[in-house]
């Protein structure tokens, strides 16, 4: 059970005199319950396209996407998306942003604020419940976005470079936070990043994608997030010889891809 992507291809039709773009070719991927799948790859290799497929914003040119045995046909509350930025509602304060999904379901205010309040606390935003989101820092806004996605209690959390806009320190803290929340809530996660270190640290499984046509070139199983959750300090995990060896290997693959493409 879980998410099953079988033999999926996506071709964006020709436009403005450019030939059609084969954004994804014959992708096979399954995401089980409590998997943390990270997608890594050069710009333009089809990561966002894959996420849009899973989210249901895009239908594949061929192939099938099944969630718990049912085909995905459109977005739904069982798959919440966290965007890189610009996805909060500035006219709502923090708690109403977080409760947005529950409001759409028609829950009474007291109930949705209670649920939202728990996730706000979980993400360490307790004192900002009534703040305007446009007055928060980028890192805080991103946490609001994550809390909002979690309140809907999705089966699958989709994140498209959620930490890309954050500074190094905030970013590492956010990584640890997301891992803890993933561990506590037991959700499946599909996570896109450009950072090799972030990918290795967070995922239980890593897919490295290659462009033109977009495909999954390599797959790795990763132990590092479990080490961290078992109590090892994050920096120690990231500095372990095993981590560094794998990091260099993945970097080599990506650079080789870039050169082959150039």
């Amino acid at each position, binding site marked *: 059970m879980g998410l099953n992507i079988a033999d999926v291809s996506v071709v964006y039709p020709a436009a403005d005199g450019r030939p059609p773009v084969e954004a994804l070719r014959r992708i096979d991927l399954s995401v089980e319950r409590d998997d943390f799948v990270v997608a890594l790859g050069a710009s333009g290799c089809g990561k966002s396209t894959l996420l849009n497929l899973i989210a249901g914003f895009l239908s594949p040119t061929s192939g099938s996407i099944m969630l718990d045995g049912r085909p995905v046909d459109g*977005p739904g*509350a069982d*798959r*919440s*998306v966290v965007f890189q930025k610009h996805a909060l509602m500035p006219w709502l304060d923090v708690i109403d942003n977080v409760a947005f999904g529950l409001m*759409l379901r028609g829950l009474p205010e007291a109930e949705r604020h209670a649920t939202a309040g728990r996730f706000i606390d979980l993400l360490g935003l307790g004192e900002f419940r009534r703040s305007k989101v446009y007055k928060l820092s980028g890192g805080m806004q991103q946490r609001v976005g994550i809390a909002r996605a979690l309140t809907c209690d999705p089966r699958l959390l989709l994140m498209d470079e959620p930490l890309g806009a954050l500074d190094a320190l905030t970013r590492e803290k956010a990584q640890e936070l997301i891992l803890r929340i993933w561990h506590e809530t037991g959700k499946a996660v599909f996570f896109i990043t450009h950072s090799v270190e972030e990918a290795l640290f967070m995922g239980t499984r890593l897919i490295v994608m290659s462009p033109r046509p977009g495909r999954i070139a390599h797959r790795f199983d990763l132990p590092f997030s479990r080490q961290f959750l078992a109590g090892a300090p994050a920096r120690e995990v990231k500095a372990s010889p095993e981590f560094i060896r794998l990091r260099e290997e993945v970097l080599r693959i990506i650079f080789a891809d870039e050169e082959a493409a150039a």
Partner: protein
Amino acid sequence: MTDQTQAPTRARPSSSGWLTRLTRAAPTRPGETYGVPGSGDTTWLSLASIALLLFLWWIVTATGWVKPLFVPSPGAILQKFADIWQNGFTNTSFLEHIAISTARVFGAFVLACALGIPLGLAMGMSPLVRGIFDPPIEFYRPIPPLAYLPLMIIWFGIGETAKVLLIFLSVFAPVALGARAGVKSAAIEQIHAAYSFGATRWQVMRHVILPSALPEILTAMRIGVGFGWTTLVAAEMVAATKGLGYMVLSASQFLQTSTVIVGIIVIAAIAYAFDLLMRAVERRVVPWKGRM
């Protein structure tokens, strides 16, 4: 140590300071955003500008450069104002003129918003609605109200309907087009986020697109009511015996320049007061405008 601070190291001549200000804004105080276009308080400049205009006006009349028939003095205008205020104009009290015109403009304005905003939103949302309503709106929009005034009178008579309808039409197009453009304000990520939480199309419309369109809708309303006042005089040209537009028109036929100017100032003052009100509403309703 101390002699170093006394060394004559003038970093930059301060005389270039105000020149650089023209090309690059000064850092903002905490709580403000750097580089927001046109930020800054203008109250004092505006007051000074008004004072200067009044002074020039007073100068040209007091020195007799311009005959009172063309430009009456500020004092004469004040006197005229007091006179109309007490005795009315053509047997109708001043307040009644004001009330009637205001009722016409705001009646038409409310009607135009009630119909124009939903229609504009629907045009933004649905190609079907846009396809149907785009040609007629774009067709009549550039035509001056004076040009179709005769048609209004032929079709709807010389009563109140034709007058309000004429003003309504001039407000309707900008409001509808503003609402239609506002639909595009929501970021695609906001819309996708709502759908990914299971929103229906209607909910996305109600909870994402409508709120993010609000700044543009409010701006369109401000522009629209301005068009309404512009059209007032045309609307009160035919078969009117009351109203500020009527007052201005009939006074001009008798070369009562001061009455004309009183009418103009009163119209401008009402329109400006309403605009200030709308700006206050804007600050309260969409404080996030342009900030995310």
